[in-house]
């Protein structure tokens, strides 16, 4: 029982982070239909940047974290302005591969600046464990859940009340109509990229505060795609609901299947889910099914 509760809470909290990273994907996909496959690399580089700020420059958290956010915003702006703006209205193949190229480039930058490739973030959250019923859980997991919920609420409020948020929703709905209304679509695109990198960075910091910074974070970025696929590519609610589901599957499956299968089954579960969803319901739980015409 204690074991189960532990798996559930760690699963939900890791799943929340996946959902956060997935939100970054959905943001870009909805506004500009660009599939961002460089998510893992963005997560990794912002974790390393946080590491530099906290461990190497030894800044306090309340200064370091805003700098990380600014860095993520800048990263998003640069990617959109220099790599994706020249490719507006290109076929989807180029749009996907250009993000792969960006990811490759960022990976090189990471190796160039932080070549030792494994490190731990300084402790962000208090060390004491929490007792929930019979289960013993380290405090990070609970903090991660809380922070993710706060970010979800902030994002929802932004899309509901802020002018830019409304413009972004409108762009997702009908790009032509938005242009006709005089909303600068390119600015919407670049804002969505900046926001995407920002949430990916927050997700990266949270997950590396649990598991340390390794190249495994690249896979975390890819696992976020299973959230996107399960929830539906163009659905915020889908991502938020599918995230914990994937996290639960991963931690429960990893916990209970490992004795029966080979070790490390945990890492493969999200990818198996991708294949299953693709075969059964390719547009996900909440995704809009596109009806195509010739």
């Amino acid at each position, binding site marked *: 029982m204690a074991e189960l509760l532990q798996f559930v809470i760690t699963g939900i909290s890791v799943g929340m982070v996946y959902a956060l990273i997935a939100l970054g994907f959905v943001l870009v996909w909805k506004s500009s239909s660009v*599939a961002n*496959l460089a998510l893992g690399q963005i997560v990794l580089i912002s974790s390393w940047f946080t590491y530099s700020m906290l461990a190497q420059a030894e800044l306090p958290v309340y200064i370091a974290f805003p700098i990380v956010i600014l860095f993520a915003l800048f990263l998003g702006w640069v990617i959109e302005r220099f*790599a994706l703006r*020249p*490719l507006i209205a*290109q076929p*989807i*193949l*180029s749009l*996907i*591969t*250009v993000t*792969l*190229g*960006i*990811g*490759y*480039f*960022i*990976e*090189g*930058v*990471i*190796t*160039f*600046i932080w*070549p*030792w490739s494994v490190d731990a973030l300084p402790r962000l959250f208090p060390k004491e464990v929490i007792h929930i019923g019979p289960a013993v859980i380290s405090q990070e997991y609970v903090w991660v859940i809380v922070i993710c919920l706060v970010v979800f609420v902030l994002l929802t409020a932004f899309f509901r009340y802020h002018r830019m948020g409304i413009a972004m929703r409108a762009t997702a709905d009908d790009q032509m109509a938005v242009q006709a209304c005089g909303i600068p679509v390119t600015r919407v695109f670049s804002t969505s990229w900046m926001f995407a990198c920002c949430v990916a960075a927050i997700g990266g910091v949270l997950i590396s505060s649990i598991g340390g910074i390794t190249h495994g974070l*690249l*896979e975390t970025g*890819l696992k976020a*795609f*299973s959230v996107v*696929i399960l929830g539906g*590519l163009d659905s915020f609610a889908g991502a938020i609901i599918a995230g914990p589901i994937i996290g639960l599957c991963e931690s429960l499956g990893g916990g209970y299947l490992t004795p029966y299968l*080979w*070790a*490390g089954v945990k*890492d*493969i579960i999200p*990818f*198996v889910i*991708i*294949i299953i969803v*693709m*075969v059964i319901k*390719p547009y996900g739980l909440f995704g809009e099914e596109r009806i*195509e*015409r*010739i």
Partner: protein
Amino acid sequence: MSLPCGTRNHNYAEDMAIVRTKTHRVLIIGLLVIIFTAPLYFSNYWLGVFNLIGITLIAAIGLNILVGYCGQLSIGHAGFIAVGAYTAAILTNRLEMPFLVGLIGAGVVSGLIGIIFGLPSVRVKGFYLAITTIAAQFIIIWVINHWGYTGGFLGIKVPYASIGGFVFRSESSQFYLIIIIAALCVFFAKNLARTKVGRAFIAIRDNDLAAEVMGINLLYYKLLAFFIGCFFAGIAGALLAHWIGFLNAEQFSFTESILYVGMIIIGGLGTSLGPIFGVVFIRILQQLLTVELVPFLESSFTMFPSGFATGITPMLFGLVIVLFLILEPRGLAHRWSLFKSAYRLWPFSY
């Protein structure tokens, strides 16, 4: 513009011929002579590089058929190469089958796995398919790492290739083996694009709904594209296994898959020359960077933490892929055809 001035097609055979002019023939024969006498004037080191280029070329041709002609984006090609490599390794090492059986078996098994992961392509395309193939890559590598029969993390040894008692032990004999198979693959791909199947692929790439309405069986042709593409990957994997002699799943990483996509984009998607240009460009660049530039930087900038210069290679590759997509999306093959037509019309501009 595809033919030089004064060359006319008078009958069907002339229209379909690959080699049309005397210059053409002389150049092709000259190229083949240079390639087949390469072991005479290149050192073993460069022959090794050429072997790698040949193997990569076979896989890239497969990917070009799948992505360039049929438009089914696959970012898991290294996974399918791994399937081929491990099939060949298991067949020749554990079951002690002859090399040729291993080679064909590797192609077929890889093709079948490709069909399995290609099944979603019937319903989805674009990004969905890309994600499916990424998932395929990770699942395949995971299975290889954990299944005892493949050697797991410890790796598996592969014997030298041998046909009828002749063992391909030296670098130059392997060079001939690889280059002959690669040449056959280039020829096959060139011809495939001009058959009914190739035209069906192109129709599916341009608009799969329209193709279906015109009576092309989407299920059959998409899965066929996956089979052919992964068959080539399997052949390349088998050759790679016999060439290296030792397999480890780290040789088939996700970044390698991205590099394959980069190669066919740099070369030019959906052209028969594209993969050749792309593969030669990327592999030579990789060789120069990792062998020349990285050790040089490491030794001259000792104040940085060790290993920093290994980041140069992915950085440059990423940059090259992005720049090609932005500045020359049709790749080096397009530049080559521009050069050809300019050469033919010289000294006039058109």
